[in-house]
């Protein structure tokens, strides 16, 4: 760069986006058909869905490889780095809003729909006419139509998981500090530790789900308590899975020697994402388990 202006790298042409679009098409079309075929013998939708997921994984690897190669070739200016950072922050903001929809449903059920079914506010007749025997309570252990379930206690696995995830945020922060100080060995150790903690969280989550399904009778179909419980923790678990994969890739790149103390956007993005997932869990722990 000889001019005083930075050159903003505009890639010429790229095949990855169209592959990604086809991948999303296959996922959407496949999932839509798969779900319709659940009650039937047909399986075509499932295969289309799997093909779509394969295409997307291929696209992610290819696209990221291109970006990493460009980055290693020094094509990116600090301005581009800012674009990536801002893009990642807005993406995380959109994720917050996604969880917001489900938290909204949780609060609505707790504060409005369940109490109203129990006759709160000016809804005495609602209860009288619909389900006079219904008693409003949260967690909703007996739904108006009589489905019963048990409440997931916050002690035990959920508490352990909270500690695990909070610790993982701390270890990731130490990894970041080591990266900034160019201390390679502590960096690898702290990051590996974070990955292990993430995986442990997921394993315990699976354990908790099977406990809920097999011993507690708490399932996706056990009324609005089970609905909000499984959708919130389920989507959170999906995000932890993605975050863990993200961290594993970062670890592999660090072992290859990819980042420098002043240039490590991908690491920063991964750690932002991880901290975000952590904060979502804290909200979950408080509003789904404890309160």
């Amino acid at each position, binding site marked *: 760069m000889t001019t005083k202006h930075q050159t903003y790298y505009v890639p010429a042409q790229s095949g990855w986006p169209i592959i990604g679009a*086809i991948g999303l098409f296959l996922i959407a079309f496949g*999932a839509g*058909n798969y779900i319709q075929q659940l009650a039937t013998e047909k399986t075509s939708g499932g295969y289309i869905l799997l093909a779509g997921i394969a295409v997307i994984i291929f696209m992610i690897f290819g696209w990221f490889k291109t970006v990493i190669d460009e980055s290693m070739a020094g094509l990116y200016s600090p301005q581009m780095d800012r*674009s990536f950072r801002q893009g990642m922050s807005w993406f995380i*903001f959109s994720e917050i809003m996604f969880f*917001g929809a489900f938290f909204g*449903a949780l609060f609505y059920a707790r504060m409005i729909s369940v109490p109203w079914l129990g006759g709160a506010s000016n809804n005495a007749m609602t209860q009288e006419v619909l389900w006079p025997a219904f008693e409003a309570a949260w967690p909703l252990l007996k739904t108006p139509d009589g489905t019963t379930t048990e409440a997931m206690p916050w002690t035990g696995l959920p508490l352990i998981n909270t500690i695990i995830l909070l610790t993982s945020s701390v270890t990731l922060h130490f990894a970041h500090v080591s990266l900034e100080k160019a201390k390679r060995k502590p960096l690898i150790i702290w990051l590996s530790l974070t990955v292990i903690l993430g995986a442990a969280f997921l394993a315990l989550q699976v354990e908790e789900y099977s406990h809920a399904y097999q011993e507690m009778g708490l399932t*996706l179909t056990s009324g*609005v308590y089970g*609905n909000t419980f499984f959708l919130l923790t389920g989507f959170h678990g999906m995000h932890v899975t993605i975050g863990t994969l993200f961290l594993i890739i970062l670890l592999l790149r660090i072992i290859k020697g990819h980042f420098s103390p002043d240039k490590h956007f991908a690491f920063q993005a991964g750690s932002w994402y991880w901290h975000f997932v952590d904060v979502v869990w804290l909200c979950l722990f408080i509003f789904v388990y404890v309160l």
Partner: protein
Amino acid sequence: MSTTTHDTLDNAHDEHHHGAPKGLMRWVLTTNHKDIGTLYLWFSFIMFLTGGAMAMVIRAELFQPGLQLVEPNFFNQMTTVHGLIMVFGAVMPAFTGLANWLIPMMIGAPDMALPRMNNWSFWILPFAFTILLASLFMEGGGPNFGWTFYAPLSTTYSPDSTALFVFSIHIMGISSIMGAINVVVTIVNMRAPGMTWMKLPLFVWTWLITAFLLIAVMPVLAGVVTMVLTDKFFGTSFFDAAGGGDPVMFQHIFWFFGHPEVYIMILPSFGIISAIVPTFSRKPLFGYSSMVYATASIAILSFLVWAHHMFTTGMPVFAELFFMYCTMLIAVPTGVKVFNWVATMWRGSMTFETPMLFAVAFIILFTIGGFSGLMLAITPADFQYHDTYFVVAHFHYVLVTGAIFSIMAAAYYWLPKWTGNMYSETLGKWHFWCSVISVNVLFFPMHFLGLAGMPRRIPDYAIQFADVNQIVSIGGFAFGLSQLIFLAVVLKCIKGGKPAGDNPWQAADGLEWSIPSPAPYHSFTTPPEIK
């Protein structure tokens, strides 16, 4: 700013300063904001005609009372898919296309901030709409629950193809979010040196705020369609009172998305009108900073008014009043905007080329839509208007004579810059007058139908509504046909015409008018200096 020096520098530069590649793959693989803008605009126009054809089916069926042409269930599919296509397939992609074409040129950027993601955002859309349209041909039919897909219509009583509807909405949402992130990052990070916030063209400002709204509410739409999916197929009861949920909860979450969504479809219009009115009045825009603040206020208020769509659902009186007053408050910033446009025209030396005609029609007709919105905002009055043709008249005034007219205005205004040729002013005027007359024949009598009590979304109606419905249908067919003139104008303009020159409107202000027409494939590879 010295574009010439930059050009010579660029020629000596490396591989990414090439012209447009040739052939189909240019469009499939492109990372160029102008190519992607063109793709968005054509896609939007095709969807506009597709959704329009569905509207023609609706108006043909409603030409007479009784069931003439289509089954009620098919009629419902037509109203639903017409709405979905016009909202997500026509208006939103048109604005994104304009954003792609114009924002980098207006702020002096070389391209959008994330060019590959830009391509991805676009190419998701044709696939998403293929899925949505294909679901019409599935066993049991396509979506028939209205574009608002209220539970339990979309859960308990919906066709199996709802699963496809849900996933097509999901990928449309992914496309919108990525498009919006790209716009925000471009505006925040890529402005040329000296392009300070309060020097930004209003189109850029309004799009920045629109993009923020998109990122904030499209995920909420994704959440609510997911709940519809699990309620229908996986036995959850978010929207089922028997399991402790509530069908009204659907409406709360949906309209938390839905109300900002309607502003997503009008804020960029405000930016377009704020660009066109000063040019043809030959005066700077009156009250620039108040326009910026008004746009921001509208965006903030849009998060506090969602329940005005639900006054008749039996909310507590406090909620009804809160949402009524918040809704009425929106009239204030909107009024500021209308006042500023009129004040800009005041004592200007005005001329009335086609973009200006559409802009003036926008100001008048959008204001009519705004006033009927105020009427609907009054809770006790809304109990009468709710779910009648009055509502249909209201939102078509703001969306057709509002959003669509502004998009037409923008197309005429920037076509010379895009193609390098002037469009045919005669044909343009024909298009305008045919459209503006027919659109009022189409939508104005709907107010009376609604006030007289004709409900929306029905294929049949009582005999006393017959005369007015016939007038409305004739207006509808005429409006539909008038849009073919627009297609002719655009095609003719692309093929040739009087050379436009850098600034065909003389008084037009802004960086996009400082570069040649047609705009070179890469504009501002090095940023211009703004004084």
